[in-house]
């Protein structure tokens, strides 16, 4: 696979990671 393909997949990983971390941060780590 070429660099553009890796970037496209990486973009998906980053978006998924942000959604999970954002949710966990609010609901688990700094829950009020």
């Amino acid at each position: 696979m070429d660099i553009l393909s890796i970037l496209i997949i990486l973009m998906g990983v980053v978006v998924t990671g942000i959604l999970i971390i954002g949710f966990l941060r609010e609901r688990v780590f700094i829950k009020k």
Partner: protein
Amino acid sequence: MGIPVIIVGIYLAVILFIGFTMRNKSSSLDDYFVGGRSFTLWYNVNTMAATAIGSGTTLGVAGMAYADGISAGWILVGYSIGFCLIAILIAKRMYRLNSVTMPDVIESRFGKRTRWLSSILVMIQYVGIAAAQVLSLGILAESLFGISFTAGLLITGGVMILYTVMGGLFAISLIDVFQMILISFGVMVILPFVGLKEVGGVNNLMEALPADFFNPMSIGIIGLIGILCWIIPQGFLSQELWIRVFASKNESIAKRSTLISSVFIYLPYMVSVLVIGLCGAVLFPGISADSVIPHMITSLTNPYVQGFLFAALLSVVMSTATSVILVAGSNLVKDVYLNIKGSERTSQREILFVSKIGVLIVGIIAILLALSAKGIISLMQNVATPYVGALFPIILALFFWKRATSTGAFATLIVSIIVSLFIFIANPELYGIHPIVINLVLCTITMVVFSLLTFKKKPVQNTHVDNVGS
């Protein structure tokens, strides 16, 4: 089919369990329909993204990319702009109105008469969308699991309606978060990886397909303007996103969560869906365009991954359908029941009970329509023409034009219904222009002319919307 079906069975049991745990969390109408106005930023981003991503924007756009190339992405760009307009133009002001439904917002400036007429349009539109979503759920279940359409629809639709009725927005938003993670990992990571690996990368993709597939302007500038002119207002009037604005903890979260989900989640999602469609065009020429994603899943992945991706696809449809059913239910309860009975004379307990019954009624109607009357569903979807045509200028005037009058708004609704009926019945030659665009132009003219004619006689002053500031 054994392992994927077991995985999907576990998935359905998990979301039903989450819905069950939320069954007693609501104690008022605000809790049930707008989550007690308590949603935090990233929670809201997840639930907004899951709602905005539906079967049309996933299976439909992948199919269009399969057939025509990356120009299919303009539909998602248009919706994204519409969602951004909610965030930039009205999210903060709308939040201050403490509303639950779109007709609530309309009544705050244009009175009960306009509210009633607009709520009829909103209800027909949303029951139609709900039925269409349930229908696509049945079709998806049938194609993925090889069971009958009726069985697939009743099982998946039944689970979906059960958790929506039990927990309202508290339940569907928490399930949205779970579903959004499945969707983004499945559609944005696994499927592009599988497709690109099989094709051999983006460079191979570009060599294998005609150059026109990679030209975003292949539809022409006129075609592009034509699409954006009706997609942007439609995105702007997505009441399923409005309820997330109302559900936010504060007005800053309302604005930022809408913006983040529509730009930083929705647009990357578009790139992934386009890549999947293009990979499908190289790998599976000659199949039905809409089946490119199910075909890719069944052809290129093992049973365990298949189960996960089937659950992700069901999530795509369910996360949108539940919100649409809740919106239609809120319109039924707030705009019909409480308007007739009077909310002052109704206890919170009764309101909550009626809300659950209202959502159940909408869910059952959606299932019955999907099972028996596909023709009626497509008929109801024609309501998008009067709905978008009238409500786009009315909502913009409501927030940004002080001279707009109740008579102007009411006349706009009447003109919109007449024009839409004429287009539907007479079917005149529109020279390739979408009916919504023609209706939008006529409704905007009506709004301006009637408001200017009636402004001096009956000025609108000191209304609730004026008081919320800008």
